[in-house]
């Protein structure tokens, strides 16, 4: 008697949130499935079939976006998690200034993306930016590349900006995982005589797997969706050399081709689903039960 009414009562608190979610997220997503097949802009919407998708996938200036998104995502995800792990291990050792270090490493995460983009544009400046100035000073001036101007290098340069900015975030997640590892395990290893590498491989890593996987998934999704860090650093340039799916969506909307933009957004949705769901399932099967 009391139980059923209680659960209806509790569920009813979800209704406002659910309504907002449906109106602003679920329904637009479903509607966009239709609109990606039209050439809609603010005053009309004619059905054009798969033309938008054909344009996105065959135009060489645009399908470089898919390649770049792939490179960017793989690079930033792996390196953010790796650096995050290393930083987390560093600040978990009980050093004297460890709280200060944690703040310092996390700080880039909360910096404004625009500020970071401007800063790195300045650092990467080919003639008198800080990086090339240092290279010239140590005599390597002849190999100092145009970091944001070389079309083969630019996506990697931008990836590093994102890694710098995001490693602290992964550090915090992994740190939480590290701190939840019970000291008993380490004591047992000390008793059994394991060296630090064994400890790392057989105790630390397995126990922080959940945190590692969370960080991995978050970075993966973020990398696929990346837009702002690329836009403020290069605007997808030079030419189209650092375009990613996010910047393609933005650019097509800005130019007024909303149908193409919606189609690009839909491709991104499909891409994220196809990559992230299986990855998540695969990783969660390997989690160690705590």
């Amino acid at each position, binding site marked *: 008697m009391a139980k059923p009414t209680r659960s209806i009562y509790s569920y009813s608190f979800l209704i406002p949130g659910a309504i907002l979610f449906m109106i602003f997220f679920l329904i637009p997503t479903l509607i966009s499935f239709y609109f990606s097949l039209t050439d809609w802009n603010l*005053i009309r919407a004619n059905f054009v079939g798969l033309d938008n998708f054909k344009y996105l996938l065959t135009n060489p200036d645009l399908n470089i976006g898919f390649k770049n998104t792939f490179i960017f995502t793989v690079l930033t995800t792996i390196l953010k998690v790796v650096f995050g792990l290393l930083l987390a291990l560093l600040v978990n050792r009980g050093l004297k200034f460890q709280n200060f270090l944690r703040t310092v490493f996390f700080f880039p995460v909360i910096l404004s993306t625009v500020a970071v983009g401007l800063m790195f544009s300045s650092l990467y400046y080919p003639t008198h930016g800080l990086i090339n100035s240092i290279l010239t000073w140590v005599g390597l001036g002849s190999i100092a590349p*145009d970091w944001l101007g070389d079309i083969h290098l630019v996506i990697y340069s931008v990836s590093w900006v994102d890694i710098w900015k995001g490693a602290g975030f992964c550090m915090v997640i992994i740190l939480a995982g590290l701190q939840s590892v019970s000291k008993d395990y380490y004591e047992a290893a000390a008793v059994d005589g394991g060296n630090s590498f064994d400890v790392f491989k057989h105790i630390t890593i397995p126990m922080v797997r959940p945190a590692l996987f969370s960080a991995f998934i978050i970075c993966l999704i973020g990398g696929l969706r990346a837009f702002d860090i690329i836009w403020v650093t290069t605007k997808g340039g*030079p030419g189209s050399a650092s375009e990613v799916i996010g910047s393609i969506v933005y650019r097509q909307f800005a130019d007024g081709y909303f149908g193409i933009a919606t189609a690009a957004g839909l491709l991104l949705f499909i891409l994220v689903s196809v990559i992230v769901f299986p990855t998540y399932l695969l990783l969660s099967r390997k989690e160690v039960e705590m």
Partner: protein
Amino acid sequence: MKLSRNRIIFLGFALVMVLSLCTIGIGAQTKTLKVLTVSNWWFKGHDAFADALYKKLGIKLEVEKLPDEQGVQVIRTRLAVNEVPDILLYYSGANMRQISPEQFFVDLSKEPWVNNLVPVVKNVVSANGKIYGSPNNSMPLGGVVYNKKIYSKLGLKVPTTWKEFLDNCEKIKAAGVVPVCYSFKENWTAQLLNLIGWYEIEKKHPDAAKLINTNKLKMADIPEYVGDFRKLSELREKGYINKDYLAVTFDNAQKMIANGDAAMYLMGSWIVDTLSANYPDKINDLGGFALPSDDGKYNGVTVWASQAIYIPKESKNVALAKKVLEFWASKEGQAAFFKVQKTNGAPSFKGVNAGDTYGIVKDFKKYLDNGQAAMALEFQIDISLSNDLPRACVDAGIGAKSPKEAAQAVDAALEKNAKDQKLPGW
């Protein structure tokens, strides 16, 4: 009556309410119209005009300036959601026709000043035979802006063929100055070479614009157009440009050419608006000449129309806005503008004496007066290229695309927009 603390507060509150009612009354007597514009379309001259307008008609202009980069998108979005100002500045030509002017703007075809417009301007502010806007500024002219001091110091003459141009570049490079400044960080500036080379193409291919508009002529099939992309890359290949060309902005480029760090810059005469503000003492060192063609036969400048002033239909002050435009088109209004701002091109209204102006504009105007000028392509066709043309130019300039591939990318962009607008022939 005992003046307790509460009573004082109550009286004070009532007084404030009454006073604020009075100010409402005062506000109703000065008419204020809202103007929406992108920041770099509004100059000192416009402010001077706004002052003259207030003095003469008691109308105050409240100008909202949008940032240069996103401004156009914001304007389009606001129009679509009916959050409109009383007066709107926007592009003219194909860019205006693309946003359905019949739906958003008041038809101004019957206004008295319409016949004062120079004929080419009349074309660019109209769509489907109806006139929707009034030109915002003079018609800028484009070619090669050069530093006269460097030229005279090195004893160089204005080149009339591409080979002479390259020879000049070699001599300038040997003297330790950057021959041509590229500012590809702002990719719109990469289009200039193709845009200023249009006179040659019009002379060699009459009706080119009409044929392009109806899909009967492809840009990739115009050898001079492909050649312009070649020239863009050639200057980089021969080392005649600044090493940091991908990081230099429009502002940096102006600094370089004003200070003599670069000798030449491919640009339109609208540059004098910012040059005169930032480098007033150096602007007289600069002049202009037409882009030399390969064979030297047809060298001329390109003429742009300025942006235009429109009145959104949903504005609540259409009659007042029309009065503002009438004053703008009058001799008095134009004089107020040009008193403070030297003209950056050929005046858009007939019979306007814009007075003296800068060397760059005067040099380009000589070509115009001589008939060696062509209207920029964007004002002769219905197709709008938005951001695809600058990107193709950057790709050609950095060597990512061959000249032919870049021209093909332009064709693809033309096709995309023409199909989107459902233009006949595509």
